[in-house]
């Protein structure tokens, strides 16, 4: 089955390769991987989605913990969590076909973020299945996807759950203003509530 591991790791050179090397050594393929900042300076959050037999998950977690610089590991697949992915799609579109794509974007709550004479770019955020749904509709509609970039999944447990390790370190989770996307205020309201069951 598909497991979603979240590992908080020290933001140091080479740590990501230690994490991915572990999966390689265990002969487990990584389906998706995201790395980024957290509420604590110097700590990175990696989300690793991997296909592995159910009974192997505890051993993968235990092995992750054995890596120096891995602070905390969680297998969020077992818990109620919000899982999100972002995708950018560049689609061939002439002036004539644009309006259909605008409609499609609205249905999927995607946004058009770039417009060129021969193509446009769509940004979509949501569960993997929502993104795959949009791709399928585009292909069925004989649209040419010129390029697609998917971010890989990010996951966070629902409720008041917080990182045990970071709490133990005495770091009160805080959000730095710089962590917010610069152009956030210009964005359309986030109406992703229907994805939360993903």
């Amino acid at each position, binding site marked *: 089955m598909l497991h979603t591991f979240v590992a908080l790791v020290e933001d140091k050179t080479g740590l990501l390769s230690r994490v991915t090397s572990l999966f390689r*050594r265990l002969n487990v393929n990584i389906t998706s991987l995201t790395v980024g900042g957290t509420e604590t300076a110097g700590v990175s959050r990696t989300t690793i989605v991997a296909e592995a037999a159910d009974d192997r998950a505890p051993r993968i977690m235990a092995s992750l*913990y*054995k*890596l*120096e610089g891995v602070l905390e590991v969680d297998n969020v697949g077992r818990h109620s969590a919000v899982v999100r992915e972002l995708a950018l799609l560049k689609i061939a579109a002439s002036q004539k076909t644009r309006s259909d794509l605008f409609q499609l974007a609205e249905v999927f709550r995607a946004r058009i973020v770039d417009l060129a004479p021969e193509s446009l770019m769509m940004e979509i955020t949501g569960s993997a299945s929502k993104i795959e749904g949009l791709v399928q509709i585009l292909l069925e509609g004989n649209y040419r996807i010129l390029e697609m970039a998917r971010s890989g999944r990010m996951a966070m447990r629902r409720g008041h759950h917080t990182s045990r390790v970071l709490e133990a370190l005495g770091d009160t989770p805080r959000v730095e203003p710089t962590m917010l996307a610069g152009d956030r205020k210009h964005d359309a309201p986030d109406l992703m509530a229907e994805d939360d069951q993903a």
Partner: protein
Amino acid sequence: MAMDNSGKTNLNSLNSSEAALYSQPTRLTGAETVWATMVGEGVRDVFGYPGGAILPVYDALRKFPIRHILVRHEQGAAHMADGYARASGRVGVAVATSGPGATNLVTGIATAMLDSIPMVCVTGQVSSKVLGTDAFQEIDITGITLPITKHNYLVSRTEDIAPALREAFRIAKSGRPGPVLVDITKDAQQNSAIFDFAAAAPAPYRPHPMLSADSAAIREALELLRTAKRPVILAGQGILHSRAMEQVRALAERAQIPVACTLLGLTAFPASHPLNLGMMGMHGESWVNHAIQQADLLIACGMRFDDRVTGSLSTYAQNAKKIHIEIDPAEINKNVHVDVALVGDLKEILETLLPLMPKRDGSAWLRTISTMKGDASVHDIQQLPDNGHLYAAHVINDIWRETGGDAIIVTDVGQHQMWEAQYYKHEQPRSLVTSGGLGTMGFALPAAIGAKVACPDKEVWVVAGDGGFQMTSAELSTIVQEQLKINIAIVNNGYLGMVRQWQEKFYDKNYEGTPLLSPDFVKLADAHGIQGTHVRHRAEVISAVETARQHPGTFLIDFHVEQEDSVYPMIPPGAALHEMIRRPKQSPLVETATEI
């Protein structure tokens, strides 16, 4: 204050100017920092080989109270550091230059990794300015060793050397031990920075967050122990790492539970103890494996259910509940599903468990095993008539008799290694140094040098085959240069014996690539200024062993043993633990009186 690896202060070995280094921050070069940190960590001996990228470190060596043993190949340095650690329990240290010096360490590091041996390797690296340019003798050794070290560092700033090295020592010896590599660029060695030993102290050891041995699990384990009729303790190397020899013995004695040992756990329980069954697994004696297969409870202490001890997993100890006491959570349910996992330090867990442990009468089960043992027990091979052949088992058995089971025996890998495990009865912890997990041929001679340097007052024997000995025999020069006294027994059968045995059993006796021509090992020894002798008859074994022991310097005995002898019992690959090939009747090493 200087601490050695066991945590004892080591101040006496420092003079006042050296001691001052540790009481006040001092400006040192990176090279000096390397040695100052090691002295502070209690290091007295290192094994190494110089080269361009580590030259600053060598240049600073003479200022510090550290013995440097020059090896003949860096693989030897890693095995020596490994043997040093296995024999003493202290962290072994190997030093090498960049590029080929570093890559030559790799087999030795992997050997230590597979057997959880605490070791720190320091390698020189090209200057940080040219890192990543394929400069002369540049290699990405931290990348290469990533999966075979517990952790590694690339240090390119002088001020990072002491913290990295101190953390390396902490990581190497804490939890489940293992090798750590610290790669230091040449400019970091040449530049200087303030050395502050105390400020460079690593963060305290953080136990693995998944350790768990709560009272409920302890109660479950006690209940299994209380109700078991046919329990067996499986003793692994974790007992040595955790220094839990007394606690395991107390558990066995209090509950009258027989003990089966893994290869690396052989010295964790005295061979002469009446509850010791011997070695389990592929070449374990039949009663040991039968006892495990018939058991209704296995108490696994610091062992990892390696494929060499379980035989086929689907048929392994099917009627037994399993208690696994282990410090590494990644080992729980890896190969064998266990009923109760007590994940933590073995000694601490047993100390919690023992006071709650009721006494029990194990006599019926012990009698059953004793009957199996009586049926199968190898006759005292010393009593067998001399049929003119020299068998390796005789050689090992005579070395055991002459040394009283108290010497440190360092083996290579192959048939002789298994015969050693069967016929040398170890009484002392850490008295067997052998590569179990990786099975590294060429290990014995360098590892014995490490063991002798760590334990100069101990009698040290190399037991090696003619194949493995030739892989690292250049280290004979190291022995001479360092004026060490080591006894070397070569079990010479003209074949790569264990491979030949597999060819005999599973490849239609197609002896491809296994017949082996060797030099005259006695002449080879002589060329190094080492005395030696050939032994071809059983009657000569004891006198040769005695000559070696009496000789003040290193002595080599080339035992020309039966060429096509095999190790029995043997579990064929894929077979169940009890489906072993027994000793054949025509062998002088018979199992029952009627078979003579």
